[in-house]
């Protein structure tokens, strides 16, 4: 089936089987391999992307369901080639990751949180990433990364939408 997707601000025309999940379409058809498969049954959150700015599991969506939505993947958060967003940079600053496999999903969940709640409490942050499993970090440095990004965005007065 032909489907027209809007990914990271760009139009993309794809031809996929109805059974193809949005996760597999992003990775295999569009080559956006920053989105990862962890369980393929909607629990681990490694496949998290943004759908109209809100986190969603791309393994729990069919590609054919995704037309007409604004999709954002980790590749869409970088400001430019080699240029990290404030949030991505904060993860590097606090080492909010180790193997990196859950990191794209974690950063997108955090991005959605900061867009809605510019000054999140620790409880807000923990709730926002509770749907993203990480086996390496024990979450501590991830929470610190998100809090640091919130702080930097506030002081730099950048509207979170543009991070």
């Amino acid at each position, binding site marked *: *089936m032909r489907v027209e997707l809007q990914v990271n601000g760009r139009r993309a025309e794809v031809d996929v*089987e*109805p*059974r193809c*999940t949005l996760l*597999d379409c992003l990775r295999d058809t569009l080559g956006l391999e920053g989105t990862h498969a962890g369980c*393929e*049954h*909607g629990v681990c*959150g490694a496949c*998290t992307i943004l*759908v109209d700015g*809100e*986190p*969603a*599991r791309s*393994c*729990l*969506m*069919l590609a*054919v*369901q995704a037309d007409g939505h604004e999709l954002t993947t980790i590749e869409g958060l970088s400001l430019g080639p080699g240029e990290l967003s404030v949030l991505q940079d904060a993860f590097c600053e606090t080492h909010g990751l180790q193997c990196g496999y859950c990191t794209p999903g974690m950063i997108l*969940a955090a991005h959605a949180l900061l867009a809605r709640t510019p000054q999140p409490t620790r409880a807000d942050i923990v*709730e*926002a990433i*509770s*749907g993203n499993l990480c086996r390496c970090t024990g979450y501590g440095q991830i929470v610190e990364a998100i809090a640091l990004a919130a702080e930097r965005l506030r002081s730099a007065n950048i509207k979170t939408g543009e991070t």
Partner: protein
Amino acid sequence: MKPVAFDYVRPTNVSEACALLAGDDGARIIAGGQTLIPLLAMRLARPTRLVDIARIADLAFVRDEGEDVRIGAVTRQSVAERDPIVATKLPLLAKALPWVGHKATRHRGTVGGSIANADPAGEIPLVAVTLQATITVQDAAGSTELAAGAFYLGPMITALPEGAIVTHIRFPVWQEGRTGAGFHEVSARRSDFAFVASAAQVALDADGRCAALGVGIGGASDTPVRLDAVSEALVGSRLEETEVREAVVAATANLETVDDLHASATYRKRVAATLARRAILDARDEALGGRHAR
């Protein structure tokens, strides 16, 4: 974990959807897909065609109709969670929605999908049973209303006729007195399937007596269960802790509970009484205006 191959159609209205379902027992409805797609990935569900109703506009709404609030089946759970009508008119549903899955699944999952999926631990079905909601279903022949209390027959098993679609759910709005709601859930992890959940809504009259009470248990049995005996026992009382404790223990004495890897049947029965009590007392306190959660 790639699904079997299937067709995909996107009807523009309900009757078209019903027509597509009629006479094709390989067709399945998809709305949010948050439970169906894992079943597809595991090849437990093997449809030949998916009928996507997620974009049928006249199934996506939250409408205050005085007597009740009517919620369209494909209303996203996150939309209901942020809807002011739900917040003010359906305090119990508003309190239960944050417990449904994760933020990411609530953004795609629908209210009707959760109702129809009938997971024994489903929070929305529990609220529907507790508040004695009515579920409107439609098939090629027309639409009928089913009482939530008679809708759930077993785990993931409902009275939804073959080839029918849930179109909307009517949650009664409690008019009289001051109402309060309470919701408690126990699971291994904060966002998991509940071992036990309890939802309670209470209305108090002018001098603090219980004018109406609804309490239900989810996750403990094969279906959500409304503890009618508790309503009968406590309406008219002041919902003192000891009265509430006795009523819930009596009402759960022969509750059939599930024994599985994560929780024993005795655990589920015992904790059902505990959570029912806590939910009722929270609801009472909220109705009294005191924000004193147990």
